C-alpha cells in the first residue's frame, strides 16, 4: 500500500522493503484507496461521528483538494506523494496480524537494545493489533481521574465532551493552515483528548502509552490538549522504538491550549522507518502568563517537516521549543519552530540541534514574529548543526521579523563537524568507530538532553548509539 514513488530519486538508498509487513487483504473496516466524499462518509459511518464532524471533514476535504502543495517548503520530494494510492482509514480490529517469528531479527534486536517491554514489542512489531496497558498504568489513570482530568481518545473526546472539544478543536490550527492540516482534518482518527481542570497540577507525565490501541498510532492522529487556568501538565507522545509500519504517510495535527497561568509541556521522541513521510502540524496557544514548551526529537523517516509553534496571545506568556533532529543517509529532516508574539512582554526561546550523517540533510526553518505595536518582547534562537562525513548538508533559515522598539531578539547559529582526527583520537582510546561517533553526537546534544525527563534522555542516548552503529561499515 505504498503510495510513494521514488522515481527521480535513484540515490535515495532506501530499502523499500524495510517495514513492509504482509497484510491480509480482507479488511472489515477498510475505506479503500484514494480520497473522495465517499471515503469521508465511510469513515464517519464507521466511527459514528456526529453530523458536525462529518460536515467539518467534508469542508476540510474541499480545502485539501483546492490547496496546492506547499512549494516554498524545502523539498521537491513532496511531489512523490501520490495521494490516490493511500488508504485513509483502517479501523481498529482490522489491523494486520503476523506472528512473532515473522518479525525480522534486526527488528527484534533493536527492541531488545532499546529495552522495550515485551508486551509493547509485540504491538510495535505489528504482531498484536492491540496493546493493553491498562494494568501497567491503572494507578496513574485512577489518580488523574480523581483530579477531574479527562484523558481519552479524540473520538471519545468529541462525543463525550463536546462542550470543551468543539470550543477549541481546529481553533489553534485552522483546517486551511496548510495542505496537510487540511488532509488531517478530513480523515483524522486516533490521537488524544486531554482536559486538565483549573488549578490541577498533574504530577506524572501522561503518555500516549497510557491507552494505546491500534488507532492511537494512526496515520492521521489528532490531538487536542486544554490545560485550564493555573493547571499544569506534561504529555509524552510516541516512543523511541522504531515503528515498523508499512504506512508511509503520516500527517498528524496537535493543538495545545494553555489558559491563564497554565503550564504545558509536550514531549515527542519519534523514530520512523526510512520510507515514511512525516508531515506534522503542531501549535500551542498561550494565554496570559501561560507557558508552553515543546520538546521534539525527530529520528528517521524519509522526509520530516515539522515546526512546532506557540502563539503568545496573552501578556507575559512564554513559549519554548527544544528540538533535536537526526538525518541519516537518505533522510531529510526539515524542522524548526514558530513563535508568534501577539502580546506585550511575551518571551520565546528556541534551541535547535541537528545532526546530518552521510547523505542525510537537516534544515532548520524558523519563524519569529514580533509586530510593531508590542513592547517588551524577547526571543532567543540558537541553532547548532553537526555534520558527520563530508557529503552531509545543513541549511538554516531563521526568519526573524521584529518591529517596534523595546523588543529584543538574539540569534546564534553554529555548524561543526565530527572530524576524522577526533574519531581517530577516540579510537586510539579503544572505542570503535561507531562508539566514537555516537559519543561525539551525544556530546553535541548533551546540554539540551539534560532538560529532558530522565527516561527519555536515556532512551534517546541508546537510539543515537544504534543510529551511529548502523552508519559505519
Amino acid at each position: 500500500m505504498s503510495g510513494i514513488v521514488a522515481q527521480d530519486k535513484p540515490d535515495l538508498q532506501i530499502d523499500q522493503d524495510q517495514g513492509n509487513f504482509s497484510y491480509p487483504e480482507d479488511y472489515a473496516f477498510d475505506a479503500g484507496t484514494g480520497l473522495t466524499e465517499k471515503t469521508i462518509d465511510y469513515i464517519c459511518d464507521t466511527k459514528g461521528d456526529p453530523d458536525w464532524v462529518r460536515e467539518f471533514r467534508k469542508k476540510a476535504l474541499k480545502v485539501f483538494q483546492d490547496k496546492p502543495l506547499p512549494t516554498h517548503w524545502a523539498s521537491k520530494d513532496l511531489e512523490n506523494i501520490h495521494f490516490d494510492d493511500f488508504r485513509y482509514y483502517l479501523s481498529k480490529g482490522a489491523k494486520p496480524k503476523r506472528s512473532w517469528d515473522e518479525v525480522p531479527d534486526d527488528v527484534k534486536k533493536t527492541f531488545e537494545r532499546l529495552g522495550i517491554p515485551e508486551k509493547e514489542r509485540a504491538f510495535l512489531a505489528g504482531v498484536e493489533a492491540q496493546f493493553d496497558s491498562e494494568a501497567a498504568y491503572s494507578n496513574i489513570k485512577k489518580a488523574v481521574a480523581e483530579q477531574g482530568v479527562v484523558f481519552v481518545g479524540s473520538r471519545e473526546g468529541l462525543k463525550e465532551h463536546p462542550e470543551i472539544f468543539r470550543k477549541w478543536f481546529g481553533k489553534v490550527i485552522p483546517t486551511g493552515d496548510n495542505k496537510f492540516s487540511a488532509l488531517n482534518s478530513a480523515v483524522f482518527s486516533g490521537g488524544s483528548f486531554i482536559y486538565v481542570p483549573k488549578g490541577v497540577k498533574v504530577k506524572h507525565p501522561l503518555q500516549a502509552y497510557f491507552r494505546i490501541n491500534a488507532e492511537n498510532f494512526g496515520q492521521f492522529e489528532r490531538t487536542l490538549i486544554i490545560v485550564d487556568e493555573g493547571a499544569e501538565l506534561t504529555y509524552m507522545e510516541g516512543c523511541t522504538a522504531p515503528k515498523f509500519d508499512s504506512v508511509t504517510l503520516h500527517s498528524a495535527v496537535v493543538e495545545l491550549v494553555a489558559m491563564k497561568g497554565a503550564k504545558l509541556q509536550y514531549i515527542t521522541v519519534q523514530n520512523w522507518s526510512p520510507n515514511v513521510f512525516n508531515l506534522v502540524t503542531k501549535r500551542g496557544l498561550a494565554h496570559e502568563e501561560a507557558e508552553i514548551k515543546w520538546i521534539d526529537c525527530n529520528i528517521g523517516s524519509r522526509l520530516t517537516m515539522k515546526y512546532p509553534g506557540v502563539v503568545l496571545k496573552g501578556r507575559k506568556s512564554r513559549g519554548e521549543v527544544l528540538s533535536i533532529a537526526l538525518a541519516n543517509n537518505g533522510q531529510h529532516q526539515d524542522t524548526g519552530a514558530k513563535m508568534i508574539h501577539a502580546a506585550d512582554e511575551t518571551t520565546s526561546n528556541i534551541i535547535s540541534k541537528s545532526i546530518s550523517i552521510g547523505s542525510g540533510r537537516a534544515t532548520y526553518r524558523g519563524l519569529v514574529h514580533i509586530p510593531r505595536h508590542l513592547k517588551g518582547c524577547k526571543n532567543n534562537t540558537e541553532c547548532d548543526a553537526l555534520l558527520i562525513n563530508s557529503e552531509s548538508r545543513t541549511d538554516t533559515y531563521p526568519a526573524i521579523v521584529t518591529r517596534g522598539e523595546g523588543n529584543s531578539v538574539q540569534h546564534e547559529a553554529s555548524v561543526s563537524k565530527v572530524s576524522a582526527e577526533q574519531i581517530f583520537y577516540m579510537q586510539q582510546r579503544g572505542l570503535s568507530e561507531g562508539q566514537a561517533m555516537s559519543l561525539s553526537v551525544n556530546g553535541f546534544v548533551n546540554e539540551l538532553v539534560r532538560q529532558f525527563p530522565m527516561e527519555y534522555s536515556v532512551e534517546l542516548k541508546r537510539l543515537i548509539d544504534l543510529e551511529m552503529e548502523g552508519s559505519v561499515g
Partner: protein
Amino acid sequence: MKNTLEIKGLKAGIGEKEILHGLNLTVPKGEVHAIMGKNGSGKSTLAKVMAGHHDYEVRGGDVLLDGESILGLAPDVRARTGLFLAFQYPSEIPGVTIANFMRAALNARRAEGEEIDAVEYYNELYQKMDLLKIDRSFTSRSVNDGFSGGEKKRNEILQMAMLGPKYAVLDETDSGLDIDALKVVSHGVNSLRGPNLGILVITHYQRLLDYIVPDVVHVMAAGRIVKSGPKELALEMEKKGYDWVETPVPA
C-alpha cells in the same frame, strides 16, 4: 618476542611520499626509550603509523606487540591490545566529560553487559588523579575543550594511567609546556614506570629527558634510527646538534 614492542624494517608514508625508510627499534617492557630527532625526521609519522592513523600507508616491515603483528588491526583494536599514544595535539570532544569518556573507553575493553561499576570506577579515577596531582573538578570538563597546553598533556597522562597499556608512545609530550607543566607531566609519567610498561618518548629537545630519564636514547634522521646509546647520548646530541649523525650508520 614476548614482552617487547618491536618495529622491524618499517616503511611507510603518505601517498607517493615515503617517510619511514626501513626503521628498526625494540622497546622491552619495563624500559623507557627516547627517540630524538629534528623536525621532519619522521618521529611523529612513526607514532601515527604505529597507532594506525588513516592518512598513512605502510609499504613494508612490521610492528609487533609481544610478538603479534598489529599492522592489520583497526586503531581501536590496537589500543585495546595494549598500545597507547599520547597525542602531540589531542582532539577536543565538546559535550563529553573526561569522566564519561574514560568510562566509555574502559567499557569498550569489557564484554557487553559487563560494564564497569560506577563506584569502582570513580575510586580508580580519583586515585589516579591524586597520583598525578590533578584537581577533581577536572573530570566534569569536556575532553580537551578549551584546555591549556598543560591541561591537555596532563589529560593524556591521566588517560594513560586509567587505561593501563602495555606500551605507551608519548609524541612530543613536552611541546607547548612551560617548565612547571613539564615537571607535573613528567612526574606523572615517572609514577607510571614499572616492569609492566614499555615507554617510547618522542621528543625534539633534550630538556624533557632531564625529567623522564630514559634507559636508551635513539636518534632518528631521514626516516631511520641512525644512532642508539645510553642516556648520555641525549646530552651529546644537545651539545653537538644533529648534523654529525645525519648519515645513517652502515648496516
